[in-house]
């Protein structure tokens, strides 16, 4: 059977380096299979996060040949195996150990976004009525598996490290899902501008490109939110009839 070389980053917060491992490649294998095989054969303590192995949980995010990917959905047959396949942790997050990074910031930042606040129920039995077409738009955002690859590739976070001022594409998608939820009545527009730094996104669409769920992050989530910000906070006419009237 064919062999291939995997150049895997080993180390921790203090530093590290790439280590080459050779392992057998069989039909249908994905990068995560190779990592597991290496872990079991020759590197028992190789740290990697994974759960579902089917692209549904968003745990095994890494950079494969420099590209942000879910390791479980990246097939070896799609990679050139005549040269080493590099596997390294996501660069936008602090390194913990080998392929595992500290993604806790995402969970903390999410808490700062105003929670879901439904309107009173539509029917006497306490339920609501919603049309499928209104639900469709938000269901796209709710496909998100929180793999944080979009956060990893976003230059505001990755290159400029502005985590304190910008919540990043994942959480803008989360905010969009709330803002466009047919039942939600809360207003997050001022927060998006002042607290969540939506103005820092300059629509390079890198997030959309890497999304394993094919969510149209920039066009469907971020741009409509930016438009709401402009309409509500910067349009003088709208400001005149302030938000209080809208509610």
């Amino acid at each position, binding site marked *: 059977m064919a062999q291939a070389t995997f150049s895997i980053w080993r180390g921790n917060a203090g530093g590290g380096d790439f280590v080459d491992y050779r392992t057998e490649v069989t039909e249908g294998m994905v990068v995560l299979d190779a990592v597991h095989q290496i872990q079991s054969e020759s590197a028992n303590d190789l740290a990697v996060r994974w759960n579902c192995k089917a692209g549904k949980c*968003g745990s095994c995010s890494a950079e494969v040949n420099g590209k942000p990917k879910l390791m479980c959905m990246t097939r070896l047959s799609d990679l050139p195996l005549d040269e080493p396949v590099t596997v390294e942790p996501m660069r936008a997050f602090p390194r913990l150990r080998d392929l595992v990074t500290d993604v806790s910031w995402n969970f903390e930042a999410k808490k700062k976004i105003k929670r879901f606040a439904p309107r009173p129920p539509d029917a006497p039995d306490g339920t609501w009525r919603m049309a499928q077409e209104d639900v469709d738009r938000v269901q796209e955002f709710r496909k998100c598996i929180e793999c944080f690859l979009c956060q990893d590739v976003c230059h505001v976070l990755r290159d400029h490290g502005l985590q304190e001022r910008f919540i990043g594409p994942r959480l803008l998608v989360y905010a969009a899902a709330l803002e466009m939820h047919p039942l939600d009545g809360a207003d997050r527009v001022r927060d998006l501008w002042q607290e969540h730094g939506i103005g820092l996104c300059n629509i390079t669409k890198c997030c959309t490109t890497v999304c394993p769920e094919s969510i149209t992050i920039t066009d469907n989530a971020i741009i409509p939110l930016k438009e709401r910000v402009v309409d509500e906070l910067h349009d003088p006419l709208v400001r005149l009839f302030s938000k209080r009237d809208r509610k």
Partner: protein
Amino acid sequence: MAEAVRRDYDVLVIGAGGAGLRAAIAASAAGARVAVVSKSLLGKAHTVMAEGGIAAALANVDERDGWKVHFADTMRGGQYLSHPRMAELHAREAPDRVRELEAWGALFDRTPDGRILQRNFGGHRYPRLAHVGDRTGLEMIRTLQDHGIHQGIDFHMELTITTLLTAGAPGDTRVVGAFGYDRERGRCATFGAGAVILATGGIGRAYSITSNSWEYTGDGHALAYEAGAELLDMEFVQFHPTGMVWPPSVRGILVTEGVRGEGGVLRNSAGRRFMFDDIPANYRTQTADNEEEGWRYCQGDKNARRPPELLTRDHVARCIVREVREGRGSPHGGVFLDISWIEQRIPKAAEHIKKKLPSMYHQFHQLAGIDITKEPMEVGPTTHYMMGGVRVHPETQMSTLPGLFAAGECGAGLHGANRLGGNSLSDLLVFGKRAGEHAAEHARSVGAGPIDERQLAEAERRALAPFDRAGGGEGAYAIQHDLQSMMQDLVGIVRRAPEMEKALTALAGLRERAARVGVHGNREYNPGWHTALDLPNLLTVSEAVTRAAIERTESRGAQFRDDFPEKDAELGKVNIVVRKGEGGAMRVERVPLPPMPAELAAVIEEMK
């Protein structure tokens, strides 16, 4: 001496899947100080993999549905070994639990008049599963997660509990906390708690072909067993009929039953719909006897009966095994599941399939290079769900050990000999909430208990022992691998006494190897070490499964005994209980089923 960081709560929840999150939300709402610990990050637990939907008799699609029908379906599916009171509470309360999710932001697919849409599923008489395409579990766990983070609950992610701490004289013990380690640095952690809720999910990693991730090593089952609680129904392991079989690296990954609910059919290598060949007597009146009627059912015709592909999972899995064994399987040892054929029946079939089964489309396209809108899938049984678990009180979810509660997959009682699809998501909401409320109440009434320093020191010694053998011991992966193949071969879908006796001998050998396991590296995020500590749990649950399966000398539900292929009426009156005996040996015992209240017996009769 113990180096562990000590934290104190009223209620400690172990596990952050649907059951754990729902329990934590309920306990917190009841005023308790609550912590959730989870082996993985928040939102990654196995609930996320649930695809088809959540069963609740909302009667949005078929007004004939109601709690009584759901109750009767659950009892029939469980071959009447389920706890009737649990099945009743589950059927009565599931609709409210689903509506509550909507109030917390979940967005289910809609009916034309804007209510929650429901779909057909195996063993459910009417369309009953509220769903979001084929990613219902993701919707559910995210809703609970996003609601839960605003409830004042402390989340400790990537922290594994290895030991429950108890207090009190023998025969009068209670649970007072738990000991574990964090994965990131390998630091020890101690939790004091008035009540502990186990919500650790299943045991799928005891088998080599499984839909379960690394996490499902029977931790809750083993923690409860070691602390002295009883386990119930451990012989009933659900093998889901449709897992992927090719390529090898994806073997076992789940293919939702929703494919069949949408009209997908099972065929053998001769192209025959073999499910028509064997329809069990107790389902005959409810099952279509021709292809035309089956299709009309999937299209919502209320006068049609369901196609045999939607019979219960245990039965479908066995039929697939039969086809493969008799030489009518697909090239890679499965059978064919075909949804593409519906293009003969409906316009724009490809779009319809992608809309209704988006993640199946994606999964096969990406991982197997197959377009399910154009060609059939190859599928075969995969270890999926554990019906057995911690024996609990049907209303409070407290185990036989005071202070210890269990909910979701690691609890037992609702599903009996076979779980219906869609009943796990409703199970974890209904009984997660109940466990949370009752645990909070229990903690309030008994308060914190004393933590025994010796127990703590012993727990820590055991957790760190593999490092003492760093140089010499065998690696954990090899032992785990051997355990999985052994269980797959000897205690799988088709079971025989001599093979299971062999399994017990093999387990003893594996236990010896596990006692000598060594790890490389240090305590920082070291999966070799983590696997070494999961091993004893896997061995305990494997032994419990095997011993309970030997004890049940009949075929019923998920348990199929080649040497006892029929049901035994006497065994239909008992559950099998496993507990740790004095001296440490595993004890197995038959206990009479809980009494069936007359009004519930009448419901079953009425729904026949």
